[in-house]
């Protein structure tokens, strides 16, 4: 292959992977921003959404709906809604009762929920790999010299839907009443409460939004890679968390930037240097950023509230 074509292809690979990391990273970063906890169950919510995707696809084909755009849209909507409910329930059951205890308590609770979700899916759905048939075939091929690089339709879908989702979310947070309340709660929860914001409801909303964005990733990844099992949320969850930290945890654009930087770094290192050490490189990058910019790429330095 033409070396320019290879680099362009690796950029496409990295952008796709990075968009997925970014989508999942949103869940980590928003929750951290608003209540300062790491929701370790978030990767498993992504896994639940992969199963929901398969269930919705089966249901829709059962009801004879076979127009691809309609199927994709309904699957996306349904999966986001149900995963959002999961997010809401988890916050109510596992985190809210612990909100005024030590900082570590909700963290341990999150790890517990992660186990609960995995075992719940394993017992109900079995531990074997599950898969869905490929729905989107084909790719756009761009000639470069006497070679080409390609971007498949499902990769285009991943990148476009991710960017749309991010754009929409940014609009909601920056421009709407709900967004203002979210930001106010993030800045100072007690003061927001005094000023009449229903902070508990805002926190619930943030969990729902985070879970729904994870569900978008779950649908897209399932469509693109085809298979999943009850433990498939673990590694991608860790990577997305890394992306959130890299971009500056608590920062929404940071999550997306962190995701894309991490995806690109992995793809380029894997493609141009060595696959064995791509994770070493990615985490090396994280450490380097943390040394020079401890709050992450777009994070604001933490100010002690007095």
């Amino acid at each position, binding site marked *: *292959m033409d*070396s320019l074509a*290879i680099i362009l*292809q*690796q950029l496409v*690979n*990295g952008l*796709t*992977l990075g968009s*997925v990391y970014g989508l999942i990273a949103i869940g980590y970063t928003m929750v951290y921003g608003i209540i300062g906890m790491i929701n370790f169950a978030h990767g498993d919510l992504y896994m639940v959404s992969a199963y929901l995707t398969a269930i919705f696809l089966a249901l829709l084909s059962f009801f004879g709906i076979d127009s691809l755009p309609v199927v994709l849209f309904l699957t996306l909507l349904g999966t986001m809604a149900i995963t959002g409910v999961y997010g809401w329930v988890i916050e109510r059951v596992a985190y809210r009762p612990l909100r005024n205890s030590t900082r570590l308590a909700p963290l341990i609770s999150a790890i517990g929920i992660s186990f609960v979700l995995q075992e719940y899916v*394993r017992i109900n759905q*079995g*531990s*074997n*790999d*599950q*898969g*869905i*048939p*490929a729905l989107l075939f084909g*790719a756009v091929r761009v000639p470069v010299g006497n070679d080409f690089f*390609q971007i*498949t339709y499902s990769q285009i879908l991943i990148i476009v839907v991710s960017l749309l989702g991010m754009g929409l979310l940014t609009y909601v947070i920056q421009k709407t009443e709900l967004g203002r309340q979210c930001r106010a709660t993030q800045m100072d929860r007690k003061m927001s409460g005094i000023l009449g914001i229903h902070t508990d409801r805002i926190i619930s909303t943030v969990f729902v939004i985070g879970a729904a964005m994870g569900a978008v990733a779950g649908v897209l*990844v399932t469509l693109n*890679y*085809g*298979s*999943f*099992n009850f*433990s*498939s949320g*673990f*590694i*991608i969850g860790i990577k997305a968390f890394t992306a959130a930290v890299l971009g500056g945890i608590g920062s929404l654009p940071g999550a997306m930037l962190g995701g894309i930087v991490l995806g690109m770094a*992995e*793809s*380029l290192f*894997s*493609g141009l240097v*060595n*696959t*064995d050490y*791509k*994770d070493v490189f990615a985490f090396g990058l994280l450490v380097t950023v943390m040394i020079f910019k401890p709050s992450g790429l777009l994070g604001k330095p933490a100010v002690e509230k007095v």
Partner: protein
Amino acid sequence: MHKSIKISALAVVTAGSLIAGSAMAEIKIGVAGPHTGPYAAFGMQLWKGASQAAKDINAAGGINGEMIVLVKGDDRCEPKEAVSVANRMADQDGVAAVVGHFCSSSSIPASVVYDEAGVFMITPASTNPTVTDRGLPGVFRACGRDDQQGIVAGEYIVNTLKAKSVAIIHDKDTYGQGLADATKNTLNGLGVTEVLYEGLTRGEKDFNALVTKIKSTKAEVVYFGGLHSEAGPLVRQMREQGLTALFISGDGIVSQDFVTAAGGASFVEGVLMTFGADPTSYPAGAEAVASFKASGYEPEGYTMYSYTAMQVVAAAMNGAKSNDGMKAAAWLHANGNIATAMGSKSFDSKGDLTVSDYVMYEWKDGNYAEK
């Protein structure tokens, strides 16, 4: 209401087993493998094979007059789980023998525990040479070795396919990398140097960057040492990127789950793999195969190996006239020609089979058949 029903049902079961226990002596045998987790398809094969064998052996009088009771041990193919399963089996359950484990990376650390406890161990599926090469007296293997498997794959690539450029990918695990290395050594010995040798991460799904890299090497053949959960997405992404190179792997993809992991039969069409000659084809095993099929289970992959392993345990203990693991092991080292559902088996001083029978299989229309 529900609770009381459950409790009374439990009481009946407990009482039932107590009566059975006093009526007839029992010998406990462990079946260890990935019964849950991403590789549970293989644990299922081990469990089905061992259960059917135990049933058949018990019907024929058991081991030294004692009935086999199976104990399940789940290691999820994780070495540290395997050690704790081994300890539990040896100390708490007091098993006399273990059929297992599946993954070489589990079998190797677990075998040390069994060795110390004097438990007889026979793995139906762990093919890494180290399992038996350490010379532990109570460790046996009812399948071939990766160095034998690698020779078959390597010679096939060079002599039959006449391929000049081969990319070798592995999953950085004991089994996967060991198999990849065995094939690599054979290839190098035959004068072919691989164009790429890299490891991917188990549990990931996106191998696009690696696939692009393989594509840039213009490899005609991609050899993968690893299991189906990673092989599936890898071969799918190769095909999606328009890379038509032949995909060859080993016994780690002998399961229908390989098709599921790839997301469809079309992606695995033409994939080759090395595996023992059809384990269901032996006349001696016809009856066992028939009973599997009658119960609605296709004895795929390592099922018959597990059945055979259980038969070897019974034969060794009956031969030694003792349920002591080490005495049975000594007898098995001294005596050969054990009649099993996969023909007559003998073991060498290390505990390996004296004859290996790896052949090439091909995936077609979502099923595999000898090529």
